């Protein structure tokens, strides 16, 4: 059986503004272990995802056992251990969107970019995700491109938008 190598990531620098923000939040929550999820939200907001060194940092600062942190992070959909990509396309697969053809959009994206939900392109430019329901059922099928909700989405348009974003290289 292959042994997983323990990857020793670079220690976080305390001068990193993102780390500072995280520290402020941890202090504000008084190092209380029950605020773990709030703190993870803060960390993910500033880092974009939850890299292992950030989790180690939180574990050390809050004195919460590693297993507890890892089990919490992997329980919730919202937290990601991997980078989601610079640009993200989130396709809602809630019931209303499903009934109105969300799967077709996902299929088309997979055809065009060879990405399945949860995957990111090799250059980390673009990632595809699904959500269980973003609560925009009246506008089904809904797609969230970066932070913008696109109502009544059509596969063709989505592909165009994605291409223009990746191409723009912003």
């Amino acid at each position, binding site marked *: 059986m292959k042994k997983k190598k323990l990857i020793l990531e670079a220690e976080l620098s305390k001068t990193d503004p993102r780390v500072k923000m995280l520290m402020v939040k941890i202090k504000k929550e008084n190092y209380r272990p029950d605020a773990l999820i709030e703190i993870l939200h803060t960390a993910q907001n500033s880092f974009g995802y939850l890299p292992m060194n950030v989790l180690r940092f939180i574990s050390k600062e809050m004195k919460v056992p590693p297993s*507890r942190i890892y089990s919490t992070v992997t329980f919730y959909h919202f937290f990601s251990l991997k980078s989601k990509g610079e640009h993200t396309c989130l396709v809602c697969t809630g019931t209303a969107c499903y009934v109105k053809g969300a799967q077709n959009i996902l299929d088309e994206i997979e055809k065009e970019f060879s990405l399945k939900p949860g995957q990111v392109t090799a250059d980390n430019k673009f990632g595809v995700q699904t959500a269980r*329901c973003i609560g925009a059922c009246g*506008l089904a099928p809904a797609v969230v491109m970066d932070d913008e909700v696109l109502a009544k989405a059509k596969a063709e348009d989505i592909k165009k938008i994605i291409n223009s974003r990746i191409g723009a290289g912003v």
Partner: protein
Amino acid sequence: MNRQELRTIADQAKTKQAQYKHKVCVCCGAGCISSGSQAVLEKLQEEIKTRGMENEIEVVPSGCMGPCNQGPLVKIQPDQTIYQRVTCENIAQVVQSQLIEKRPIEELLLFADSRPKPFVNAMEDPFYKKQLKIVLENCGDINPEVIEDYIVCDGYKALDKALFQMSPEEVIAEIKQSRLRGRGGAGFPTGIKWETVHKYVADQKYVICNGDEGDPGAFMDRSVLEGNPHRVLEGMAIAGYAVGASKGYAYIRGEYPLAIKRFELAIKQARKLGILGVNILGSPFSFDVEVRIGAGAFVCGEETALVASIEGKRGTPRPRPPFPAESGLWNKPTLINNVETLASIAPIINRGGQWYGEIGTPKSAGTKVLALAGKIKYSGLIEVPMGMTLREIVFDIGGGVPDGKEFKAAQTGGPSGGCIPKEHLDVKVDYESLVSLGSIMGSGGLIIMDETSNMVDVARFFMEFCMDESCGKCVPCRVGTKMLYDLLCKVCNGQGTRKDLDMLEELAIYVKEASLCGLGMSAPNPLVSTLRYFKSEYEQQITKNAAVQGGTHG
């Protein structure tokens, strides 16, 4: 601030509003924002300013107005005219024609493209006429980000009444008399829940607002939190007073950033006015609320899992008893109510439990907010009295199925609910009637399916959802839902056998009865209800297979 000052604020705000000739609300619910209402709002403000009409016309970004599919929506008060699909280009025309010349723009009116004669007063349109708005009464008419707007509409009056004219026992009696039932899905009588928490003696109790609206196809709580957060806050404070809690948590889905933002703003504003905090409105009662952001786990809608999540752990449920009312958050007595339940509290206190109890059916009192979506002409958010028939909701309010297709089934209650076929279109939408058909009221999602929907596939879709969302703690749900999903896939792929159908039925009952929490107990519902009403579709899938059986392996 004391109660006198609160009244002064209300009076001042009222006087200020009276000077305006018109109030123009631009819907800034999440639906309309994604249709571009933010730009419309800015354009409108600019237009009013350039015309120098700021003292005549009040422009308000409001919460959800209902027909999300037609957005962005703009509502003109007091005429009650709603314009649909308003763009920045239309704004000048709207101001000129409607506000100055008092001439409604026919082609922009709500449902202008689908009704032979659209209504100038939108409230006369069947979409609105059949509704009864209690929870949503101010939603779409006030600016959810301005506390004064809420106070003008008798906001926090119920809290004032409860704190100064009623004992906690009287508040509970009023709620009991209203026969309000939990709107989160199970329909447990709210008054009895409050009474239970009230009777436990503890140094600390908690009130939790459950805004973890996880059902795919449901956006009622989201709209309430976004459109009228103060109403929920008021409900929480009254609940806190009644049960003796000084601390509240609002657990809101991380997927609803706007709702979180507005609710946090509402808390801040209320604290500033002394409506939250120590000695509320000068009374001895103290209460404060904190927001907890959900991180994406459907099972956290289950109250014991919700508690675990607020404690910062994996959101796994635990067996009940003990119920949270006895031992909840940090093992203290905890009241957990859904957003919509809490939003129903203030009107009940203001207008009396008897008034509320007379709405709806004998067993299910009051109104229910429903989210209409799927294959339906007018999708969106509606509120109807309990006991309205499904037919009225789908055809009179929702306008029926579009594109000349035929209605096939309505799915209620999300992944915990079932499918109601067209034979039962005349079912009354209330807790008991839906249960008798093998579905549940749930949180209020109503997804309409037309003849093109494959019901076996629908069952598979929901089973996949439950399998993914199973926390993995108990065996029936963890392994059972996976087995059911695999079997359903097999049937969908045309490889199922009669034996598989029998196994589906056997396992479904087992998962339903042996699972630990509500997720597992209700996970088989969509499967069971489709098996009940659409068994022929399952059988078709199997007979298709009978012809090829024996040769497909390898």
